[in-house]
Structure formats: structure tokens, C-alpha cells
């Protein structure tokens, strides 16, 4: 039972990382109608800058403080130089150009930081475990990640439901013509939304630093999961991003944790292990296919 709770928390923590990635990207898809493959690159930039600053200063908080503006600025520069030229182009052009961005950023990080992965330590004040329930010890750092994620979700919710700019962005995500009609400076709004999205990706990256290896190309594996989240949730919907991220995080973590045990009831252990390994690594894609057959536009379609 404790194991189930622990895995639920792991799933939640993974889901929250995915949410930070998806929130910005789903808005970029929804508002600007741009398919951006390079979103994972900003996750990688956040991780690298955060890890480097943490190593030099010895402070994880300074690392985060550096990673956020770094990924935001990189994002806004890329938006101004490249993405703006692509807003009215076909999706194919967007895919190809942002694929070019991935090549560029992956190679750039290899030049700056080398081919060896960087490893980041969990800061001392977040290391160790907390006893959540009698007998259930959970790493403090992972709890902190969950806390930060929930905080960000709350802040986003406040921005989108309470502020003028938030409502404009939401209106834009569900109906593009609206923004123009509201008399908003669209160029500036696009750049800001893009920068906010890449800052969140950078935050996800720096927080994943102590859990994963920081290396060139680390953005792509999470990018594809982010796509799965967005497709499941519905393009352009923050609510969908929350639901999709938690669903993907939980299904993936629980599948990996419990499918082998489950299968051992059914088959001999060799078959069970290999079948469970295949199925758990494919589980979220199967989930996505099933949801799309049922609802081709995702769970919470923003465009009616």
C-alpha cells in the first residue's frame, strides 16, 4: 500500500514536470498555430544554465534564478528571429524550421558544455527524506518539485482567470480572430507568451537536473511526451494540459511499477517481464491512441 502511494507521488511529480512543459507549448500551438519542435531545447537550456550556475555559485536557488531568464530570453530571441517568419506558413515549414533549431541548439550545447553529461546534486537543504505517513519516506526534493509545480499551476490559473492579459491570451487560444478585435499588440503578446512558455520549460529543465543527467538532446524525449500530453488534453487548453500531464505521468509511472507484478500472475516470469516491459513503455501511446479514437480533438478541445 505504501508502495502504491509512493508511486502515485512519483507519477504526480513526473506529471508536474510534463505540465510545466505543456502549459507553454499548448498556448503556442493554440494562439499562434505554430507547431514548435524546439520547445525541448529550452528545457535543455534551462537545465544546462541552471546546472552551471549552481556549480559555480553553490546555490541551487541562484541556478533557478539564472535558468528562468536564460530560457525566457532565448525563447523570445528565437521567436523574434525565426518563429515570426513562420506564423502564416504551412505546418510543414514550421516542422522543418524548428527541426533545424533543434539541430542548432543540440550542437551548440555540445560545443559549450562538451559531450559528457553534467550531473547536478540535490541541494543539501532539500536532500534527505520526509516521513509522510508512518513508514513512508519520500525524497524532500521530489516533494519540493511537486510543490513548485502546484504553485506555478495556481499562479497560471490566477493570471488566466483574473488578469486582463490572461483573459486575452485565453480568448486568443480559443478564437484567434478575437485578439485582433480586442486591439491588443499581437506581436508583443506573441513574444511574451512564447517567452513565458520557454521560461516554464526552462524551470522544468532545471528542476529535472538533479533527477536526470543534463545532456545534449535531453529535450527531445520529454518533447515527445509533451506532445502526447497536449494531444490528449486538447491543443490550446491549459485545463487539458493539466489533465493530460497528470494522466500521462500517472499511467507511465504506475505502468512501469506495477505491470510486471500484475503480469506475473498471468504468465511465467520471463514472458511476464518482457511483456510488461514492452507494454509499460508503450502504455501512454496506447492511451493516447485510445483517447483519440474516442475524441479526435482531445479531452478538452479549446477550438470548438
Amino acid at each position: 500500500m505504501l508502495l502504491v502511494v509512493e508511486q502515485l507521488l512519483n507519477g504526480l511529480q513526473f506529471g508536474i514536470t510534463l505540465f510545466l512543459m505543456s502549459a507553454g507549448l499548448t498556448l503556442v500551438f493554440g494562439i499562434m498555430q505554430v507547431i514548435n519542435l524546439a520547445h525541448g531545447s529550452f528545457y535543455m537550456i534551462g537545465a544546462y544554465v541552471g546546472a552551471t550556475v549552481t556549480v559555480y555559485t553553490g546555490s541551487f536557488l541562484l541556478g533557478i534564478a539564472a535558468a528562468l531568464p536564460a530560457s525566457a530570453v532565448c525563447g523570445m530571441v528565437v521567436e523574434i528571429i525565426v518563429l515570426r517568419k513562420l506564423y502564416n506558413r504551412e505546418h510543414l515549414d514550421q516542422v522543418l524550421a524548428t527541426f533545424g533549431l533543434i539541430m542548432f541548439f543540440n550542437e551548440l550545447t555540445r560545443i559549450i558544455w562538451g559531450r559528457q553529461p553534467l550531473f547536478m546534486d540535490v541541494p543539501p537543504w532539500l536532500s534527505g527524506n520526509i516521513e509522510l505517513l508512518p513508514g513512508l519516506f519520500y525524497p524532500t526534493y521530489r516533494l519540493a518539485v511537486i510543490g513548485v509545480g502546484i504553485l506555478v499551476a495556481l499562479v497560471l490559473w490566477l493570471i488566466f482567470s483574473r488578469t486582463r492579459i490572461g483573459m486575452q491570451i485565453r480568448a486568443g487560444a480559443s478564437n484567434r480572430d478575437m485578439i485582433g478585435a480586442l486591439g491588443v499588440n499581437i506581436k508583443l503578446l506573441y513574444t511574451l507568451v512564447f517567452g513565458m512558455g520557454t521560461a516554464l520549460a526552462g524551470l522544468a529543465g532545471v528542476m529535472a537536473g538533479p533527477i536526470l543527467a543534463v545532456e545534449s538532446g535531453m529535450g527531445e524525449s520529454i518533447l515527445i511526451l509533451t506532445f502526447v500530453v497536449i494531444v490528449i488534453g486538447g491543443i490550446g487548453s491549459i485545463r487539458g494540459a493539466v489533465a493530460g500531464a497528470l494522466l500521462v505521468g500517472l499511467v507511465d509511472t504506475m505502468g512501469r511499477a506495477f505491470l510486471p507484478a500484475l503480469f506475473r500472475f498471468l504468465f511465467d516470469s520471463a514472458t511476464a517481464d518482457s511483456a510488461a516491459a514492452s507494454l509499460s513503455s508503450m502504455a501512454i501511446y496506447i492511451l493516447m491512441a485510445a483517447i483519440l479514437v474516442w475524441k479526435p480533438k482531445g479531452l478538452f478541445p479549446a477550438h470548438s
Partner: protein
Amino acid sequence: MNPLFRKYVCIAAVALLLAILPIAASMLGQEYYISLFSRILIYAIAAVSLDLLLGFSGMISLGHAAFVGIGSYVVGIFFYHSAEMEPLLTHPFTVQGSENGLIVIPLAVLVSAIFALVIGALSLRTKGMHFIMITLAFAQMIYYFFVSLEKYGGDDGLSLYARSTLPGLDLGNDLQFYYLCLLLLSLFLLFTTRLVASPFGIVIRGCSNNERRINALGINAYGYKLACFVIAGAGAGLAGALLANQTEYVSPGLMHWTLSGELMVMVLLGGLGTLFGPVLGAAAFLLLEEFLAMYTEHWMLYLGPFLILVVIFAKRGLYGVLVGGGKDHG
């Protein structure tokens, strides 16, 4: 110069070059180029098949490498079972492994086509960005499936020790293998050129321009797009079967999404919607990789921005530069 004439001159020149290249290479003692160009011809088949989707029917698949991978694994798995003398399947009927190219290559094409049928049938329920992401996700699903297949090497893949056998040919001979690839590429180009000008072809080209209008004409666009997706998947499967033979090695790396992206880059560099262009694109991409890598290990740093410039400013690709027309299949 008349563009049509220029087109035929260019195609004839490229064909002649490809036909005499291995002879020249072996005379100069540069046998290495024969295997490099075999690889180019094989990637060209995959890129041409992807051009059917990207350039003609407007279906932007970001998972095309999956079918290349499936084709190569069919060859790999049949080879493995043949070498181990262990039946591939015992229930409900017995299937033995095989090294016979007349069996495994068509089978690779068929299995890829079946996968394309299933993936396409599901993916085509969606449109636009959803379609792009779903094809990518299906490819990842297949990638992870093969990564977790410990029996066939998992992450590390399978080594084949030898190429498929074909009556009257020795595929282990690089020269013969090269000409087989050239023949298959030529046949595939002939088929696709006829295809895009056929009644079926104008329907799929119409779909890329305006799918709703196709339906208003009384044509069920879904069926045509699915058929096109299956044909493209089969072409990629053929490329995969040849690639498994060329490298004598198969691995999940072949279906990684970056390969799908690279195939797209080949199509773009060569010229979208031109069929012959992707052949040039495949050659350009692999040669660049080969030679730029000699001068700088960071060649992707230059290729990335170059690609962005091509997308923004010069979408006609190499084919457009040589022949002069843009999207023209006259």
C-alpha cells in the same frame, strides 16, 4: 532552355552518373564510395516515399522512420530465426526463418504496409497539428516496442552476419548490391511518377489543396489518403529491408524520430513535391554529413540554420535550382 527539356537532361545526367559511379569507383580503387552511394540510393527510396505524403497529399507525417525500421526488422528477425534454426512461429502454424531475399524483401514491404494501414487508419481521424503529433507518437510506440524486445537485442539491435540471398545474384558483393538498389529506386520512381499523374494521383493532390472540395465531388478523401499512406509506408519498408542488408545490422535507432526528421530534411533539400528532388536531397544530406564531418564534428551547428534559411527563403530545393520549376510534375 525549355524546362521540360532541362528536366529530362538533369534526370538523364543523374541517372548516368549513378550508373557509372561504381565502375569508376572501383577503377580508382575507392570501393568505399560504392557502399556510401548504396546507402544514398536506399535513403532516396525512403525520401521519395515520404515526398508522396509531404509534397503531394499534404499529410505531414513525423513518424515515417517507423516503417523503415519495421522493414529492416522483418529482414533481421527472419535472418535471426534462420541462423538459429528456430521457428519464428509455432502456433497456430509454423513459420520458419528465411534468408531468401525473394521472400523477406516482399514480406518487409507487406508488413510495413500493414502497419501503415493500421497507423494511418487511426491517425487520419485527425487533421493538422494533431496528425503530425500522432504519427510521431505511433513511431515512438514502435520504437519503444523494439527497444524492449530483448529477444532481438533490445536497444543494441541484431547483427545479420550476411545479406539476403537472391537467385543468380550475390548481394554480399557490393557492386551487385548497388545495382539492385539502383534498379529498385528506378522502379519505385517510375511507379510514383505514374501514380501522381494518375486519377488516384490527382485526387490525393487535390486533397492536399482542399479536402472538403474532394468530398463535395463525391469522393471519400479518407480512403484515398489512407491508400497513399499505405503506399508510402510500403516504400519506406522497402528502404528498410535494403538498409538492413546494406549494413547487415538492424536496431531501434532506425525508427528514432530524428531519422524521420532527417528524411523530411532530405525531401526539403531536394524539393518538395518533385519525386526526383528527394533523390538529390538524400545524396546532398548524406554527402554533407560524410564530408562536413571530416572538417568539423559540429556540422549540425551549420546545417540547422541553413535549413531554416532554406525553409524561409528557398523552398524549391535543389531540384528547383537545377530544373528551374518549383512544384512541377509536368
